[in-house]
C-alpha cells in the first residue's frame, strides 16, 4: 500500500523533500513505518525522541495501524507565534 509522507522544518531538510510517497506492507503500524524512514534517513534518529506523529492531520499513537492512502506527517517540536 501507499502512504503519503509529509515532512517539515528540520525533517524536510534532512530528507530533502516536503513530501514523499512511501510503499509499505499492509497492516504496518506507524511506529514500524517511522522505523523504516529512520533507517533510510539515519540523521532523523537524533530527533526520534521529540518527533510528533500525525495521521490524516491528527496526532495519534505510534501503535496506530495505517491504511492505504493515509497521510503521515512527521512533526518537529513546534515554535510558532511571537519570538
Amino acid at each position: 500500500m501507499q502512504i503519503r509522507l509529509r515532512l517539515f522544518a528540520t525533517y524536510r531538510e534532512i530528507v530533502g523533500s516536503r513530501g514523499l510517497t512511501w510503499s509499505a506492507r499492509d497492516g504496518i503500524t506507524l511506529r514500524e513505518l517511522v522505523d523504516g524512514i529512520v533507517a533510510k534517513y539515519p540523521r532523523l534518529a537524533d530527533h526520534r525522541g521529540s518527533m510528533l506523529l500525525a495521521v490524516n492531520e491528527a496526532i495519534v499513537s505510534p501503535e496506530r495501524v495505517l491504511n492505504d492512502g493515509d497521510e503521515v506527517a512527521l512533526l518537529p517540536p513546534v515554535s510558532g507565534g511571537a519570538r
Partner: protein
Amino acid sequence: MIDVRRARIDLEAVLDSVRRDDAGAIVLFVGTVRSDEGIRALDYEVYRPMAIKSLTALAEQAKEKFGIAAMSIVHRLGRVPVGGDSVAIACSGGHRAETFAACEWVMDEVKRIVPIWKTDVEGRPKSVRGRR
C-alpha cells in the same frame, strides 16, 4: 476569524471580527519579529490543514474555559521581516480579567501545540557568515 496567511495581517479586521454588543473588553495581542542580532526576518512554515484545525479548537476551548464571547487567531506563513506582525490574537469578553487571561492562554497554546515552525533569516551575506 481563524486563518494562516502569507499576506500581511489586517489588525483592524481581526479586531472587528470579535466585536460583540455584550462584550465590555477586547484584547488584541500582536506578536512581532524582533531584531535579534543578525536576524533580518523569520520564515514561518506551517502544516496548514492541521494548524487551522488546531487554532479552531483552541478558540473554542478558550470560549469554554474563560467564558469569553469571541476569539480570532491569524498567523503568518512565509517570510516576515523584522518589525512585521507574525501573529494576531483578538479576544472579546464581558470583562477585562478573563479576556486578558484567555488571550494569554491561547498564545501559550499556539506556541506549544500548533504545527508552525520558524527559521531565522540572517542578514549577513553567506561569504561573511562562512568566515565566522
